[in-house]
């Protein structure tokens, strides 16, 4: 019995094929609703929506290169308490990985969801997406995907994929129950459907789909893309490190920050209901601020900007999945994602951890062993 099936692409195109596939899932008795990106009727904005009526499936726009928020937060909200049924959720790879982190942080469960993922074609930042929509004569999602499939990333008006996407090495949906594969598919009449868990296989079996043979080119196509992404990522790490390698450079890097905390609000893994930065802990008295000013001659206000970013790195970099929403949300275009990812790489490596890889890997700061890291103890031997 194979775990590979065909997602048939009809003459109307990929978008129609995906919508039919989603519709068939939604029509299963075992699935109550499907969460997927939806084209809003009032404006060409794409947002996640929980669709329960199969007749509404044509609003769903899984190809739109729009990534206004990391939907892991939405799935966390949907699964924190029993939802009373099973919902399918269509997520980008970084959303799946963020959700896996949230599950480990007890902010959701996998019990009542079937995760559907697809080889991620990437996305634009919000402002770029709006410009892209204006440049399109046909459906923006289909136009974009068509171009990406041809490996053409020269979009009109010099619009470029988000930096986070260009540096993303996790474009395949490894944590999904059902994976939709299009990379390296020789045939144009179908995409690959793979049941990656028992739950995913069970859904695919119920759909009575045609079985697919293992595609020969796929492995190589993924390896090629991975090599390109890793090279881009490592360049990004080196550039970012060079730009922030001491406090003077770091303050220059963060100089435009206005302490709006947008990067924390949109961060899918920043899960505290009340962040320490909105509590009284660092809500200093005026007399304290005056003391700072008197000690150094002046104090920039709001203060604690570098402190905030370093603390967020300490609190959350081990869970960073690199989705890039922090950069997307920054009103002053600070490359927050670059800073976060380049440090997260180090902190995750230090504990042999990879955020979003598996629900079975405990978050590094939630566990300890008796004999470990003895080299950080003592005042000799630095």
């Amino acid at each position, binding site marked *: 019995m194979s775990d590979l099936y065909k997602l048939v692409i009809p003459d109307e195109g990929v978008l129609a094929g995906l919508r039919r596939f989603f519709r068939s899932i939604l029509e299963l008795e075992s699935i109550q609703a499907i969460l997927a990106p939806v084209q809003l009727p009032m404006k060409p904005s794409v947002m996640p929506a929980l669709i329960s009526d199969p007749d509404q499936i044509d609003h769903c726009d899984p190809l739109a290169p729009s990534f206004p928020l990391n939907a892991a937060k939405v799935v966390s909200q949907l699964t924190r308490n029993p939802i009373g049924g099973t919902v399918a959720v269509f997520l980008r790879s970084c959303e799946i990985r963020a959700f896996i982190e949230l599950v480990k942080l007890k902010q959701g469960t996998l019990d009542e969801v079937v995760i559907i993922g697809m080889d991620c074609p990437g996305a634009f930042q919000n402002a770029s997406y709006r410009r892209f929509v204006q440049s399109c004569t046909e459906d923006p999602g289909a136009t974009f995907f068509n171009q990406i499939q041809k490996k053409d990333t020269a979009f009109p008006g010099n619009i470029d994929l988000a930096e986070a996407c260009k540096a993303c090495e996790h474009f395949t949906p490894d944590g999904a129950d059902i994976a939709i594969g299009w990379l390296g598919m020789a045939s144009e009449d179908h995409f690959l459907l793979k049941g990656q868990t028992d739950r995913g296989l069970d859904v695919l079996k119920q759909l009575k789909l045609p079985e697919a043979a293992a595609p020969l080119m796929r492995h190589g196509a993924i390896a090629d893309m991975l090599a390109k992404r890793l090279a881009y990522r490592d360049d990004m790490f080196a550039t970012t490190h060079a730009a922030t390698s*001491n*406090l003077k450079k770091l303050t220059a890097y963060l100089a435009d920050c206005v302490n709006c905390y947008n990067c924390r609000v949109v961060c899918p893994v920043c899960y505290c209901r009340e962040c320490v930065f909105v509590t009284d802990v660092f809500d200093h008295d005026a007399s304290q601020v005056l003391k700072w000013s008197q000690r150094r001659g002046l104090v920039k206000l709001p203060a604690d900007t570098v402190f905030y970013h370093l603390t967020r790195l*300490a609190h959350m970099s081990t869970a960073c999945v690199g989705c890039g929403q922090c950069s997307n949300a920054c009103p002053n275009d600070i490359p927050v994602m670059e800073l976060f990812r380049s440090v997260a790489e180090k902190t995750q490596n230090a504990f042999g951890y990879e955020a979003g890889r598996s629900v079975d890997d405990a978050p590094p700061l939630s566990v300890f062993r008796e004999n470990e890291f003895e080299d950080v103890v003592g005042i000799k031997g630095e």
Partner: protein
Amino acid sequence: MEPFEPTIVAFVCNWCTYTAADLAGTSRLSYPKNIRLIRVMCTGMVDPQYVIKALLEGADAVLVSGCHPGDCHYINGNYKARRRIRLLKEILPRFGFEPERLRLTWIGASDGIQFAEIMRDLTSQIRAIGPSQTRQTMII
């Protein structure tokens, strides 16, 4: 110019290192006045944010010191502290803080002599590496 005198903030646990400091005091052992002790109930409560704040506020070094492994009053707080220090050792040097500026030691309640020795060693080490970059940088 006056010779450089470092400021060292030490987060010490109530049950072991603070008690050792107390013992050093009652034993009339001297140790440098550069050390600013902050007593906490356990090193396991020293969130990285306090270490970062101390360094940005101008501490030339931060020491976290608690009970020896197996001796934690709260069973395992010191193991958690060790992971947090490991984490900070990855982050802080990326931004130009020398690794020597963040230290973790285990000093038991009866180790009054060791406490005074370690404080003297640490102070002379930090004196040798000089003032922290925070003294010359405008912190935003």
